């Protein structure tokens, strides 16, 4: 009980005193996971919409694969990304192992199927006649897609939240491809594990609380946007 209290006090202290190390770790977490989420948003929504709107052979198989990907274990992604980008791997020439870029790639791979799966379901959930209606009003195919995406913006925002929540709290891939290098690839989750290993439980609790606050703040802001649009 004492320890938890100490952790909370320490967290408060670290936040209000703008501890430079904690700030930089938090900022890095935000940058890496934010970028990864944005990438996954572009890829996920476009592929998700394309699959939802087109009928082709093997569509159910593709959807099953995407849905499986939504539960892709981060350590599996971490392992494969590591193998791809280490010096002797096929993408070794890029020399990006143990850099923030590698972490962005790994996290984007984790988040993309989540965004893809949710946006696919969102588009499929729209009334099928809506498409015909839009087209009959003289819209081009691209305009039709744009209207559909706009129509499903609520679940799409949920997809962003799910994707971001998945990668900001993820550790397996981050520690494998990032390496937890101080001031460079050390993010909130990897720092928490390391401080636990060092026996600095108060600092670990503090970092964990900051992580929770960060996730909450992002989701709160996104929810604000989502709900405001709904009530309109």
């Amino acid at each position, binding site marked *: 009980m004492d320890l938890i209290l100490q952790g909370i006090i320490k967290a408060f202290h670290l936040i209000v005193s703008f501890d430079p190390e904690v700030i930089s770790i938090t900022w890095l977490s935000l*940058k*890496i996971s*934010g*970028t990864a989420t*944005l*990438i996954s*948003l*572009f890829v996920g929504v476009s592929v998700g919409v394309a699959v939802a709107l087109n009928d082709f052979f093997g569509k159910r198989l593709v959807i099953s694969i995407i849905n499986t990907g939504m539960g892709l274990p981060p350590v599996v992604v971490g392992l494969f990304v590591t193998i791809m980008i*280490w*010096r*002797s791997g096929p993408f*070794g020439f890029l*020399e990006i*192992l*143990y*850099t*923030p*870029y590698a972490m*962005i790639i790994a996290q984007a791979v984790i988040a993309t199927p989540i965004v893809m799966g949710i946006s696919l379901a969102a588009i499929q959930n729209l009334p099928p006649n809506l498409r015909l209606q839009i087209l009959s009003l003289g819209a081009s195919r691209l305009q039709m897609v*744009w209207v559909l995406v706009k129509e499903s913006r609520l679940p799409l925002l949920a997809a962003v939240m799910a994707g971001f929540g998945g990668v900001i709290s993820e550790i397996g891939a981050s520690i494998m491809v990032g*390496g*937890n*290098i*101080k001031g*460079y690839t050390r993010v909130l989750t990897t720092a928490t594990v*390391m401080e*636990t*290993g*060092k*026996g600095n*439980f108060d600092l670990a609790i503090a970092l964990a609380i900051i992580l929770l606050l960060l996730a909450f703040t992002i989701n709160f802001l996104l929810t604000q946007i989502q709900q405001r649009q709904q009530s309109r």
Partner: protein
Amino acid sequence: MKIWSNIKRPFIFAAAFLFFISACDLNGSGQKNIILVTTTSTQDSGLLDVLIPLFEKNTGYFVKTIAVGSGQAMAMGQKGEADVMLVHSPEAEKKFVEEGYGVNRRLIMRNDFIIVGPADDSAKIKGVKSSAEALKKIAEACALFVSRGDYSGTHAKEKTLWKQAEINPDGQRWYQETGLGMGQTLNVVAEKKGYTLADRGTYLALKKTIPLEILVEGDAMLLNIYHVMEVNSKMWPKVNAAGARAFADFMVSKQAQEIIGKFGVDEFGSPLFFPNAGKKVEDLGK
């Protein structure tokens, strides 16, 4: 205005994307990066947090420290995925150099291993002089022994000790493996009230939070020796040989050795590591 409202959102996304990308700076070119693989004990004790910033300031290199068990560290070196290694698994290191993967193996520092356990000490090993004898007693009492189980230097040492005690602990009910680093393993041991082999540095660094006591120490078998090795760049052309050499040279330099000798004195009353650069392994502990 109509067009703007249509492209507004993607535009904002693109702007944010560019912002995020630009905010991630590349730390120099490849030639300035060094990948150092080292053991969890040097990171968990905090020693590297003191040494590496100094090295970076002195030379302008950027060190990517990857803290893993000595076993994994050497596996990475073997594949040329690392440039320089700071490890403590002498037998495996010798083999590593003989097989041509590593060059320039140099002694850096030592501390010692200790056997730690709960204060009530159900296996009654406190004060036993020989570490193998102590392990025998633990086995006889069927007291819980927690192993790192991760092919780290500490794990290698532990296996040597079991061999000396002529006991095969694998699969025994009282023998558990964590597969974690030293710090985390000590936390597990403290929680389960078991025994384990630990390096003194990590134990001292964690002592304030874990109720474990040093039960066996001082045995010559328990010496813990750290060497620095450069990965052979003839075998792996991508290895940053110059950077590896610079780091190894720094570790044996007078400046680094002095810092190692003083590290931990303020906090723990005694140093966590003893600098030994330039000495012979055979002369240690005498």
